[in-house]
Each structure stands twice: as C-alpha cells, then as structure tokens.
C-alpha cells in the first residue's frame, strides 16, 4: 500500500452515509454494513490504494441516477469501477466517497446484427461481447490484454487499446452511442447507432475521461467483420535493438500489420514459465507480428515481413500453422503482465508512447534506468504504435519510491522524445502529478473547461487526471529542484 496523501471530500461518511444509501437503494445493493468489506475495494490492477466509504452495486440506470443525485446533494465523490483491472488507479477512491461497481450491469442489451452494432451495459466483459458476436462473423476490435476480465465500461473510461488496435483503432473509434449519468444525477443519451451526430462530439470527449465526466450506463459499439484469415509470425532476435529496428523497417516499408508486439528476454522468461507459449528463451528480443483480412495475399505479406526480420538479424522465424498455435502465441503476450508474478511479487507498469522512430534510443534509456536504480525492468509492448510497457519489478513496498523514480525517468524520456505519458492505461491517480511534463498550464486549462462543463461540482472521480495540490506538491518540489 502506498502512503497516499488524501484529501477526504465526502460531505457525509460512515454510518450516516451507509444508512442513507441503504434507505435509497436497499441493503442488497450497498456494501459498507461491515467496514471490513470495504477494504476489499481499495485496490485495482495497479499499485495505489484507498478505501471507499461505501460501495454500491446498481442494477440499472435508475439506480445510478438516484445514487448520483444523493451523492451530489451530500457532496460525496462517486467513483466507477468495472472489473478493477485498471493500471492507473482509475477505480481508486483517492478522495473517499462511493465506489460504484458495475458488476451487476453486465448484459448485452441488443445484438443488432443488421446495423453491426451492439448495445451493452458497462459491466459486460470485453471478451464476452466478441464471443457473442462471433456467430454473426463480427467482433469488437479493442482487445486489451485483460480482455477476459475487463469491462466495456472500463474500456470506455480508459479508451482502451490492445494489440490489434494498430490497424483498426482503439475504443473511441468504435463507440457510436452512450448513455451517461452526470454527477448531479442527470441522465444524458449521446449519439446512437449512427456514426455522426449534430453538434459537438461529446462521445469523443467522454471516451477516455476516466470517470471524471460522469458514469457511463449504456454503450453502443460498432462490431467489425472478423478477418477471413490471419498470419501470425514470431521472430526472435539476438538483441532488442535488432528487434526494434525490424519494427521501424516494417512500418517504413508501407506495410500496416494488424499487430506488432515486442518482448524482451526477461518478459519472455516470465511468459514461458506461465503459459509455455513456445517463445525461444535465449532470444534478446521477440517480435510478434500479425497480418489479417482477406485470405488473398496474406502469405505474400507474411513473407515480406519475414524477409525484413531476416535482414535485421532474426535468428528464429516461425509462422503459426494452426489456430491453436496462434492462440498460444497470443496467450503468451496477453498473460505477460500478470506472469510477472513469477519473477517478482510486484510490478509497476509504465505506458509511455513514443514516435516509432525513437524506439531504439528510448529502449536504451529504459535499460540505463534499470541499471542506475538496480531494478529489473521487463519490456512487453505494442511496438507498432510506439506504446511502451516497461514493467519495473520489485519485491518490497519500501522500494516503491525508487520504483516510482525509475518510472518517472522513463516517462520523462518518452515525453522528451515527443511522446505521451500514457497510451492506453490512463492517467488516473498514478500519473496525474506528471501531467505538467506533457502539457502546459494552458493545455490543462483547456481540459479543465471540459471538466467544468460536465461536472461543475467536481464529484465525478475526483483526484484523477488533473494534478491535485495535496498529492502533487511533493512532485512539483521534485521537479523544480
């Protein structure tokens, strides 16, 4: 647990809050009667923690709206939670308040095959949507590594990506409609099944807003035809430099693969221990590349990619021959973060993005940071869009400060290379203090205008995205030093 400096905002807390919520929604939807239960909602997939004052499990939009009105009236922050797989502390009630778990709003409301749309509740698991769409030869494109567990609501909040978003876009490119509940309890429907609407693109602003603009209660997404076929290539290189040079060469050649993933030796070891995906253990870098679409010409594309890898020093080249082989290759990649548990009890994953051409030098910086701090750092990432995921391994929460420092150095390098603090995990409470690295005060003020329009009372997931004076003071001192 990190020693997070908290500013508790809740107008009411403890017994009065629980009693009020139970009166409003009934006991089966409220957790907090037994305070020990609340400790089990103080974490998500990342490292930061904070205990909620109450947890509410709504059944429908009306519950959410009633809850929001209640919280608005009493000045209580409201923090949405999907499956709690997030990697930036998005679901952590850093300023206290009510955590809203969408675990019971997890239905597919409509599978609209004719329009290639699905209308779903926010608690629906990402993979369950694609599974349900598969008989219609359709799928939902964003495929975060946590897709077996993470929810659509979480995907909307974080604007989630995944390996296959390189060619087909992230969550925001696949949402056409939302029903949201503002922090004052107003229910607003935005868009629908059409691609454009009149007026401002509020859906575009809402997707990726990490619960700070309101709570999403219904989502309409595009479903995309499944590719007819795929070719998945594993290429092993003696060094990461060669692997990343291959990525640049593939992009430069004008090819747009569906996915290009990279993994270094440390990550490979963990993955092999966990999944046995068949990655060569002696390689310095492993590249996973997939082309898909119509069957025609795929073999030729795959051969071109293999040729580029060979020119860049690949020692092993393997093309998945069966669906099972392909799934195994991907299982390794998708289980990579969690597999770190095999190497160390804890990890801190970064999510910086860099222009693709800067890959080799930023990776070298990562390895320097690792040496300087004496911390092992594994790399598993979406190389095709320059989205790095350095995993800083550690074993003791007392190391956390050093770990954060290493993470910050890596992020600084990403931003200096012209990149971003986060490509898909979100800012949350993990990187909000770092936002000034990437954005000037004017830029943050621009975002603040959006926040004010949606949530003037600042009750929707407060303490996220924007730097907060209490928690970020230390970082600002650090930065000015």
């Amino acid at each position: 647990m990190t020693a997070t400096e908290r500013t508790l905002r809740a107008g009411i807390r403890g017994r009065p809050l629980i009693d009020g919520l139970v009166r409003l929604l009934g006991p089966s939807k409220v957790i907090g009667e037994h305070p020990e239960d609340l400790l089990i909602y103080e974490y998500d997939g990342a490292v930061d923690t904070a205990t909620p004052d109450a947890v509410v499990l709504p059944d429908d939009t009306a519950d959410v709206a009633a809850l929001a009105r209640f919280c608005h009236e009493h000045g209580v922050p409201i923090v949405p939670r999907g499956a709690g797989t997030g990697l930036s502390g998005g679901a952590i009630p850093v300023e206290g308040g009510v955590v809203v778990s969408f675990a019971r709003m997890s239905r597919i409301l409509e599978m609209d095959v004719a329009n290639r749309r699905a209308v779903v509740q926010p608690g629906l698991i990402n993979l369950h949507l694609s599974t349900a769409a598969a008989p219609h030869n359709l799928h939902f494109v964003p495929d975060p590594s946590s897709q077996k567990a993470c929810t659509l609501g979480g995907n909307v909040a974080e604007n989630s990506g995944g390996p296959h978003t390189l060619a087909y876009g992230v969550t925001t490119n696949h949402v056409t409609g939302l029903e949201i509940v503002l922090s004052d309890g107003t229910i607003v429907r935005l868009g629908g099944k059409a691609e454009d609407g009149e007026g401002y693109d509020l859906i575009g602003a809402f997707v990726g807003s990490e619960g700070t603009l309101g709570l999403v209660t219904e989502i309409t997404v595009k479903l995309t035809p499944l590719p007819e076929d795929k070719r998945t290539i594993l290429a092993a290189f003696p060094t990461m430099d060669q692997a990343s040079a291959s990525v640049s060469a593939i992009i430069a050649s004008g090819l747009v693969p569906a996915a290009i993933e990279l993994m270094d030796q440390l990550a490979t070891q963990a993955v092999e221990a966990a999944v046995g995906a068949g990655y060569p253990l002696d390689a310095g870098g492993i590249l996973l590349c997939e082309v898909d679409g119509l069957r025609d010409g795929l073999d030729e594309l795959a051969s071109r990619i293999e040729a580029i890898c060979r020119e860049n020093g690949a020692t092993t080249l393997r093309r998945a021959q069966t669906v099972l082989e392909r799934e195994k290759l991907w299982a390794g990649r998708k289980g990579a973060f969690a597999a770190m548990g095999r190497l160390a009890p804890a990890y801190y994953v970064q999510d910086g993005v860099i222009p693709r051409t800067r890959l080799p030098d930023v990776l070298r910086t990562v390895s320097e940071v690792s040496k300087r701090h004496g911390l092992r750092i594994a790399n598993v990432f979406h190389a095709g869009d320059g989205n790095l995921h350095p995993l800083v391994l550690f074993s003791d929460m007392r190391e956390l400060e050093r770990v954060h420092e290493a993470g910050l150095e890596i992020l600084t390098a990403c931003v200096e290379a012209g990149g971003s603090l986060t490509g898909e995990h979100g800012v949350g409470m993990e990187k909000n203090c770092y936002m000034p690295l990437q954005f000037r005060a004017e830029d943050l003020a621009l975002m603040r205008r959006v926040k004010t329009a949606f949530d003037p009372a600042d009750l929707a997931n407060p303490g996220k995205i924007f730097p907060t004076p209490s928690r970020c003071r230390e970082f600002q001192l650090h930065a000015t030093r």
Partner: protein
Amino acid sequence: MSLDRNETATVERLRPADARTCADILRRAGEARQTVRVRGGGTKEYLGDPRPTDLVLETTSLGGIVEHVPADLTVTVGAGTRFRELEDALARAGQMLALDPPHADAATIGGIVAANSSGFRRARYGGVRDLLIGTRCALVDGTVASAGGRVVKNVAGYDVNKLLIGSFGTLAVITECTFKVTPLPVATAGLRARFRRAADAYAAADLVARTPARPAALAIDGRARDAWELVVLAEGEPAAVDRAIAIAADAASARGRAERGDVTAALTALRELPASADGVLVRASLPPAAQTAFAEAAMRLEGFMRLVSDAASGIVRVEVRGDDDVLVAAADSLLADARVCGGSARVERRPDRLRARVEAWGDGDVPGLFLMRRLKDAFDPNGILEPGRSVVS
C-alpha cells in the same frame, strides 16, 4: 451570399500568421464583444445558419507543413494549408492523409476539421475523428493551447481534439493539426453496379460491408426511383484488392449488373454534390441498416433529384429541387425521417431566400444539447465565435 455585416466594406478582415497573433485577435475581440467568423478556404460558407459578424479571421496564413516524419506515419500541418497542397507533399513521400473531403482543391485543413468534412474513404480509413491525433488552437481568452499530441496512441487527459472536430469554429480557432498518415495503396480497383431498386443496391452494399473486404468506398447514387448505382473502390495489396472487387461483383450480380473499371472520377463527382446551390441538400447520418428505408422515403418526395450515400458509414445526402413549398416540405420530411430512423440530419444547403423558413437543424432538438451549451460557455462565454454556425451556437 455574403456573411459580412453589410455590403459596405466595414467588416474587418484579419489574417494572422501565427497562433499567438490569432489568440491576441480573439482576446481583443472578446474584450470588445465583437463577433468573429473564422474562414479558411471559404468553401463551406453555406453550412449552418451563420450570422454576419464584426470580424472575419482568415486562417490562410497559418499554412505549411510543420513536421512530417514519414517513418512515424504522422504529419503536423498549419490549419490554413490547403488539403491539395498537403496531399501532394505526402504523395512525394509515398503517403497520404486518407481523407477525401469535398472541395479538396480549395478547402483548408482547419476547415475540414472544423466541419468534420469527410468523403467516402472513411469506409476503410475512418473519418476526421479517426485520423486527427493532435491540435493547437487559439482561444477567446487569448491563450494558445494544445490537445492530443504527435503520437498515434495517447490517452493522457481528455481528447479535446474530438470536440473541435465538427465544432465549426464555435469553440476555438484551430491553428495546427497532427494526423496519422497512411502509405499510398499499392493497388486500386473499382466496380460499378446498376440496380432498379434502392433496396437491391443497399443489400449488395451490405453484403460487402459484412465481409472483411474493407472497401475504400461503398457509395450509392440514386437518380430516380428505378436508377440506382453502387460504386465500389478497393485499395491495398493487389491480391486483396482483386478479391475485394470479386466479392463486390458477386454481391451485386445477384440483383443488378456489375462492371469493373476506374471509379475515381465518379466518386469525386458524387462527393461534390451538388455543384450548384440551387435547391435543398439534406445530409443525414443514419444507422447503416436504416438507409434503405430512408432512401425509399426520399425518392418518393416531390422534387427528389438525387441521393448519394456513403453506404458503409450511413451518411446520406439528398438533393431536392422545386418551388419553395416543395423545398420546405421536403426538408422537414427528411429531417423527421432521419430521426425516426434513429439518426440525425441537417440542411446543408438551401436558397438564401428560404433561410428563415428552413432551419439548418429543424427544431434543433439534439441529444445532449444542454451539455454542448455548457461547453460552449466554458470555451467562449460571450459567444463571439461563429454565431449561428453550429446547432449549439
């Protein structure tokens, strides 16, 4: 039509050369409560219900390519740059910005973004919102702010880019844009298929859209009740392009007559519909499967001239000609139909004399409008930017 306050030359025209100057102009205008119109290539002056303003801010000096790193597949460009100019520069590096907006010769990048102006190729490559990754803009409080960035994946903070797309300059003045770019396709092929019924044309388009063929354009052109044409463009690797056209030919041949050939010119002509501003043009955005019903209703309207549809995206434009009453009735009916179909619509063009009788958004009942107004207030509290241009202002 002139949008200047009056026909005498009292309107101040300003042409800032950088974002800072642009912001200063806005700040002074704000202090003086002067209204401002933002003009790029001036190609889309017909959109919305714009009212005359005190100032016209021209973006054409905010031009030029700021940065293009071909290997990163991104380009940063001044908002005043003409689309054609950017297209040529990218082509020299074997790349393209995969938009095919109307008025491509004269339209500026800023105008294309502000009007969310896209063509048929959004079927494969996405529209402006899928390609724009960063913007710089000047605000009425005199600040210059950036949104997004120059990397293709970025979730740091709110995606303010999205709000600027289609905002018609009512929130801020876009001064610079960064886009994802794409390698030029190796191969291109086309197909045209004729049908006697709208439903057949849409059914064929739907069959193609349901496959992984990912055509670059899936356009439908209806000229009369019994004259419908499907125009398919495929781009990409040669083998896949051949196959995509074969799939389209298959889909079309059951119901109509298909013919392979170059469709570039045909698509450009459809995109520019209509050349004259005579009559009414309604643009609807619909759930894809609702297009057939909408088209069948449209073709029965008195004065129906032509319907052009981006069948993959559900964007339909209908042209109607006739006397004033016919035009008013058709516009009302199309706006209502779009809503019934689960979509939305606006009147893009109508004769000046009908501006009072045919409002661009009908009754203006847009979901979430109150939130949009709050946003407008947060960005432009005195409402000096582009009055009447958007349903929000």
